[in-house]
């Protein structure tokens, strides 16, 4: 069951991250983290569009959050 394995990995991930000891960066030193290039997506609509194209043309999907949104897959 992939679901059970997935739940086990989530649990492991949560506990591993919880145990990590990374020194917090002070709030006043976080300006560069807010740069556009530091965001996870180029843009939300671009990510949605590109995700739909790749999901339609490749066997793989998932990994970017929630699923859904029709076919368009010929």
């Amino acid at each position: 069951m992939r679901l059970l394995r997935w739940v086990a990995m989530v649990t492991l991930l949560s506990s591993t991250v919880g145990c990590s000891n990374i020194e917090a960066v002070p709030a006043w030193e976080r300006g560069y983290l807010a740069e556009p290039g530091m965001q996870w997506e180029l843009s939300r609509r671009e990510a949605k569009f590109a995700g739909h194209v790749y999901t339609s043309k490749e066997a793989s999907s998932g990994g970017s959050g929630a699923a859904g949104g029709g076919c368009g897959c010929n």
Partner: protein
Amino acid sequence: MRQAVAVAVTKHRLDSAVLQKLPTDSPVVASLGAAIASLPTYQKAFADAPPAFTEVGLRYSHYTEDSLDKDLLVFGDRDRYDIDVTQLWIEAPVGGAWSVAFDVQNDSMSGASPWFVGTNLDGEPGVIMSGASIQDNRVEVGVTTRYFWADGNAGFNVTHSDEDDYEALAFSFDAAWNSDDNSRTWSASASTSDDSVAPVKEAIPVFIDQEELDTQSLYFGVSQVLTSTSIVRVGLSYTISDGYLTDPYKLADQRPSEHERVTLNTGYRQYFVEAGGALKMDYRFYNDDWGTDSHTLEVAWQQSLGRHSLTPYLRYYSQSQADFFSVIADTSTDFYADDYRLSSYGAITAGLRGTVMIGDWEVEGQLERYDSDNSFSLYGGDAAPGLVDFWRATVGVTLRFD
């Protein structure tokens, strides 16, 4: 002074340089530390604050697949799909803690696609195309509401997609919340989609009237600030589909009625202060119960040019073939398919994206090339003759205002 520093923090770039020149034992910084830390400044790297502006945007993309190589064609039209995609959206803050986004997308498709794989006069595998050009139009409408609080946010989305032969209604819920020191963000989402396929009986024979498909998906991820210029994330997703998963437009296609897949995805961002640019790296491992594994690696460099930006990017993708795939479908087994999308192959994408700010308007442009080939794959397996290559171009404008 307090207000000036707070404003400086909120307006990222120049301000970070100013702030980082302040000694950490500065009484100003010390007295404002808690207040600054509580500001909802660092959108997306952490749980979001409500958008400060109303945003209205319009994008147009043209997607065009290369014609099938004549050596790989047995019968039919070599021309493949062209798709025109229009995206329109408005996103606005509502009150002090909510936002609402309304998205509309229209896909206009035309062209032919592989019907099945046979052999040519030399005995080599070749594609029989679907014959006459297929016309289809898809309209997708989505609404997202989001609530923000001091340590996180939560959103609810409903999306309806309708085309001639396919209808889907999807709901999703997501949430993100921060650690006490705002260094770590947990995020989770769940979604469900109720789909219905009713193939159009025109160009090629199909053997069903209407079938249903249900899909549920879960995601859990964590992002962590490593340094003042780097951040990393890792996430896991699980998706299960139950229902009709066969492609009704393929002559020789019979797939299992259940499909489980998991992904492990990671991302890393590193800002280079001297260069004024950011290195973006993402990797995804995918595994499903149809026997397919895949690796996806994306690398981009986002160069800031004042208020403008230029982003070249590369993507490498490789997948193994599904257990029931064969170049020419073996219809003597329970499940079979000759769909190139289930074959073993690799693909390389190269693209360039640019944004230009003109007053309150952002103008974007993007060009991308996708090439796939069996020889690009990390896995063994025979080459499917129907692999696709395509170009994609996008232009768009976004207006932000109070």
